[in-house]
């Protein structure tokens, strides 16, 4: 039986929340984790010219069960938790949120993500919404 709930002392991403934990009394017979989903590749936009693309600048929190995915799910529901799937984020709104921060999201500086890189990220999000983002 797979039991991952308490592995690291922190609540696990939903993809590994598997119920039905039971005590395993036999030290010699540990439970394998073979049914765990692989960690998705961080690079969603391979080959993109910008060094700080969506995956590197945003995906650490906004993908892969990250902090922002969960916070957005808390506030707006799971259906709105992935920003690259949303249609209600205008480019100027994204730009303002990145530069000023928003709630629990810290602001990101131009030294971390340049204006040009941010434009590329916004373009990627637009393409992602239209279903034509490079994969």
């Amino acid at each position, binding site marked *: 039986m797979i039991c991952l709930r308490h592995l690291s002392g922190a609540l696990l991403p939903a993809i590994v929340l598997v119920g039905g934990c039971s005590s395993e009394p036999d030290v010699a017979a540990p439970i394998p984790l073979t049914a765990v989903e692989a960690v998705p590749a961080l690079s969603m936009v391979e080959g993109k010219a910008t060094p700080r693309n969506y995956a590197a600048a945003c995906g*650490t929190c906004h993908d892969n069960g990250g902090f922002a995915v969960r916070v957005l799910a808390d506030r707006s529901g799971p259906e709105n938790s992935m920003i690259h799937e949303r249609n209600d984020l205008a480019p100027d709104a994204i730009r303002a949120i990145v530069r000023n921060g928003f709630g629990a999201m810290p602001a990101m500086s131009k030294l971390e993500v340049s204006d040009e890189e941010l434009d590329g990220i916004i373009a990627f999000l637009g393409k992602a919404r239209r279903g034509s983002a490079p994969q």
Partner: protein
Amino acid sequence: MSAILPPGVTAAEFSAAMRAFSSEIGSQWVLITDEDLIPYHDAYGFAGQTDHQPGGAISPANVEELRAILRIANERGIPLWPISRGKNYGYGAAAPRMSGSVVLDLGRMRRILDVDVARGVVVVEPGVGFFDLYDYLEREKIPLWASMPGNSLGSVLGNALEYGLGYGPMGDRANSLVGMEAMLPGGELVRTGMGAMNGSPCWNLFPYSYGPSWDRMFTQSNFGIVTKAGVWLYPEPEEVLSLDMEVPDEADIGWVVEALAPLRMRGVVQGPVNIGNFMRIVMGSGRRAEWATGKGAIPDAMHKQIMDDFGLGWWGVHLTFYGEPELNRARAKVVADAFAKHTSQRFEMHSWKRGEPRPPLPSHGVPISFPLRIANWLSPNGGHLGFSPVLPPDRAAIEQQISRSRAMFRKFDFDFYGGVTLGERHVNVVNMLAYDRDDADMAKRADALFRELMNDAKTRGFGEYRSHLSYMDDVAATYDFNGGSLHRLNEWMKDAIDPNGILAPGKQGIWPKRYREAQQ
């Protein structure tokens, strides 16, 4: 232009200095407007906080540009505040200790310079984050794991230099830093350890050299800027074996530490052991509204129901063994036998084998960001603050600390996010509180709680090892042997190595002469 200036520097002098920086490194890497400097405030600081405002921000691409920046800062008396990536959340993030300081953002120095697969060493620059390193090792299929922190957004070097603790055999990260290159405030570049010898292949293999070891001089200090360093990584283990037990009662922490401390000291247990209370999980769940409507602490009377709901005990004990399955099982058996003297509960066990997909957990060398969700516990504009004194791994001392911490958290009406991190011969007792950044009353209570925790610990001889910017002077003052002789040594050192006082004034309570005199 920002309205915030360093003490004793006029607007005209400051503008001229920023122009000089621009001419050296390019104006696109120099930020001066209030709008552009928003990211260099404390991301999780209280609203209206004014003590840590940046005067500007600059970002060198390499050591040569860094040297030019230091030359200008020395010539013009401009204080610099180095950051690696600025993700030191809960401790001040990217903000400077002293308002008006120019944040020296090393995020552009982000190269992974060398990997020695056979020896388990990587040499990185300060801008390299845990996600960067993980991504690189995965992409290149390098069978090495880095120790990951609970919030993995930060810099590998920055975290280690601040004494970050984390998961896995290399979880004591400051001890995993071997061989540094650092620039002194005057621009001189030095290499520590065997790196002091040209061409040494052992720079990042042996932690000492000949004569004094200066590596620790650059940890939590303002004596130099680390420009690259070796970090020891762990060879991908054949197996990771995890043992988990939820112990039911608050008082159980005493016997748990008593059972584990000798095993940790003897190396049966590898790396720091992180034992967290149920609120550590609950506060990261986003489910507060199910149990509370106001901003006060959830009453103790509800704790049992919440623990049952989550399937948690008061404390979660999580141990992880790395290596050959036979060794892992032998280690696990020793731990299980030690626990059997205190409880009839059995560990839940899990294993990961080489070749299987890795679970997305820091214990398995995978970076994560989700624990930052505690910033959303009380408010959409939340933040967190921690106090983690160092104690001996003694049952009575820890039980007393938890009891006293709990009483203080009750007094100031905060939920108690508690943890115990067991080192080889010590524990850090984590006291974390979450707050609403826009609530002025909560800001006062959080400050009062932090100070009471700090002063209470001091009366029993226990000190903090890391703190938010706002408490650096106060924590430094608790180190009072011989009238604070360590602090005097730090000041002597500071004045000798940084006579113009340009580097990180006030960090860890160490002020250069020019600002000490101004304060007096």
